[in-house]
């Protein structure tokens, strides 16, 4: 009895539960990874392939392509994209002290959409188009996401101080402007390009290749690792900017770093995965409901749960109507929406940052 009290000096300290949840999530991610590699439309069996490899037998070409060139990059990409979206959502909700914040709020999604539609519709006429080939859509989506977020950051920063409120409002204006430009280009698009853009907006991990992964890994992993350094600052920020400043937290540097991290991670995630919604909102909130808002645990757990959730969604996406494939954005919204509402209604009243 006494030891228990000593171990949790504060009533409501949930850090031990959060740490334990972290281990559970590592296990969950491991299981979803294995499932992602083992299950698919093609009848290729992971186990027989592993057995073949173990005894040094050569794999059939088709099995090799399915496992090594389709499933492995796809699982890795799903993990990266899911982790990036969930962590970005958690960081932004902490930064804006607003439970509705998600990467869309800083213009990432709208910017990426604009970049993608420019590449899809005007692709052939753009400089360097031939050199970029199939890369043109992700490259432009990334440039669009990054450009929109940086513009917004510049607008909201006056005399070395970033106003979070200005950023929120300017974000709405900039998103409207970006969407108008997107609409303009959609207007001149032909039928096939429209279809391409619609599908891009619904998201998919089907385009995962080793080449894309090589570019995405540093762009996503570096910001994710750096986000760990923000945890204490974001915790302080929950008390308000002034209070955080008095506590000795370099508030302006924190804001700048958070925006950079989100722009790089989500920019890269959206550019390779397309418009995958909901992960950035659902995952952080689920974790806050379960183990509280302490960012030291929230950020790593969000990365783990985001990765696992997107892998599960992708598993559904590629098997439910096999041999065809349902866009993953539809699945994250269809499964995520009601599930989130259910949790919310059951625990009504304790949703807080």
């Amino acid at each position, binding site marked *: 009895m006494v030891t228990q009290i000593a171990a949790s000096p504060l009533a409501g300290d949930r850090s031990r539960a959060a740490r334990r949840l972290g281990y559970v999530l590592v296990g969950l991610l491991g299981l979803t990874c294995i499932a992602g590699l083992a299950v698919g439309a*093609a009848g290729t069996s992971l186990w027989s392939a592993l057995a073949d490899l173990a005894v040094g037998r050569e794999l059939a*070409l088709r099995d090799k*392509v399915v496992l090594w060139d389709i499933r492995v990059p796809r699982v890795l990409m799903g993990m990266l994209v899911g982790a990036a979206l969930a962590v970005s959502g958690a960081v932004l909700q902490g930064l804006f002290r607003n439970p509705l914040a998600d990467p869309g709020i800083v213009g990432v999604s709208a910017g990426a959409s604009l970049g993608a539609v420019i590449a899809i519709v005007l692709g052939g006429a753009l400089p360097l188009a031939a050199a970029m080939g199939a890369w043109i859509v992700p490259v432009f989506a990334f440039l669009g996401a990054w450009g929109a977020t940086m513009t917004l950051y510049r607008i909201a920063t006056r005399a070395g101080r970033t106003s979070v409120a200005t950023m929120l409002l300017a974000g709405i204006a900039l998103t409207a402007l970006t969407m108008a430009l997107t609409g303009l280009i959609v207007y001149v698009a*032909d039928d096939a390009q429209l*279809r391409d853009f619609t599908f891009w907006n619904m998201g998919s991990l089907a385009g995962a290749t080793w080449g894309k992964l090589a570019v995405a890994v540093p762009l996503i992993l570096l910001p994710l690792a750096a986000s760990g350094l923000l945890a204490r600052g974001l915790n302080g920020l929950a008390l308000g900017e002034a209070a955080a400043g008095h506590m000795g937290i370099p508030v302006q540097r924190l804001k700048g770093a958070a925006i950079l991290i989100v722009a790089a991670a989500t920019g890269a995630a959206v550019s390779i995965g397309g418009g995958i919604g909901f992960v950035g909102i659902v995952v952080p909130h689920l974790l806050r409901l379960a183990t509280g808002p302490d960012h030291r645990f929230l950020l790593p757990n969000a990365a783990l749960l985001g990765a696992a959730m997107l892998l599960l969604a992708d598993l559904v996406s590629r098997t439910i109507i096999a041999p*065809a*494939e349902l866009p993953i954005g539809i699945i994250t919204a269809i499964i995520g929406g009601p599930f989130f509402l259910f949790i919310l209604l059951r625990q009504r009243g304790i949703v807080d940052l």
Partner: protein
Amino acid sequence: MKRLSALVKLQLSLCAVLLLAFAAQLQAEPAQRIVSVGGSVTEIVYALGQQHRLVARDTTSNHPAEAGDLPDVGYLRRLSPEGVLSVNPDLILAEDGAGPPETMDLLEQSQIRVVTVPMGFDRDAVTAKIETVAAALGVPEKGAELTARVSAEIDRAAGRDLTGRKVLFVLAMQGGRIMAGGTDTAADGIIALAGATNAASGFEGYKLLTDEAILTAAPDVILVMESRGERAISDETLLAHPGLAATPAGQSGAILRMDGMLLLGFSVRTGQAVTELAAGLDGLGS
């Protein structure tokens, strides 16, 4: 002894010839597990009587109706690599524009033959499609036969002169606005084959038209796709449109409906489509 060895030699060489012939046969072994991507390609495979070799089709392949029983690998521009591989194909017949490129690269990497069928909206495009498909299937004689039949049908149907009959193809109505087919579309191609004039010729592709543009286009006939379900555009909706109602077509209620795949597929039934379209145009007003 000498004679014996000569005999053995003869036997050996015969064996070798036979083996070689067998190997050649193996090499030319035509594909038996085919995925057909694109509605017009699937129609051609059926018209060539080769449907028993199909193992899957894409979402746009809805004619003939039996094609619907085959597994669907998805929309032709959004094919999933593992989905296509899962039906274990040895040949993929794809309309030009099938993709995405990542999927096509992976299919090539797994050494599956991919034959791209050229697209286009005139008679030559139809014959080129049939020839490409027939060659890929290894049935060039049947292909030549079908090409001759289809081009004769188109020629016979296209003999009419309906010049000056202005046709507006309405693809869809979005929020009360008309999306019409301009130049460089399948609609434009089939209207031209029927000998009529496309009323909406000032732009490329399918576009939303303003009421004024519709009035200027002044179509004599409105052409729409017959589709099942609620997506069909009803006569009332069309005639209630303020721009359309004031055109000659709107005044006389000249609305022509045709099956979308027949009208716009540019495949084996294009001759029939031209005949129906021309007959319909002839029958309506004037």
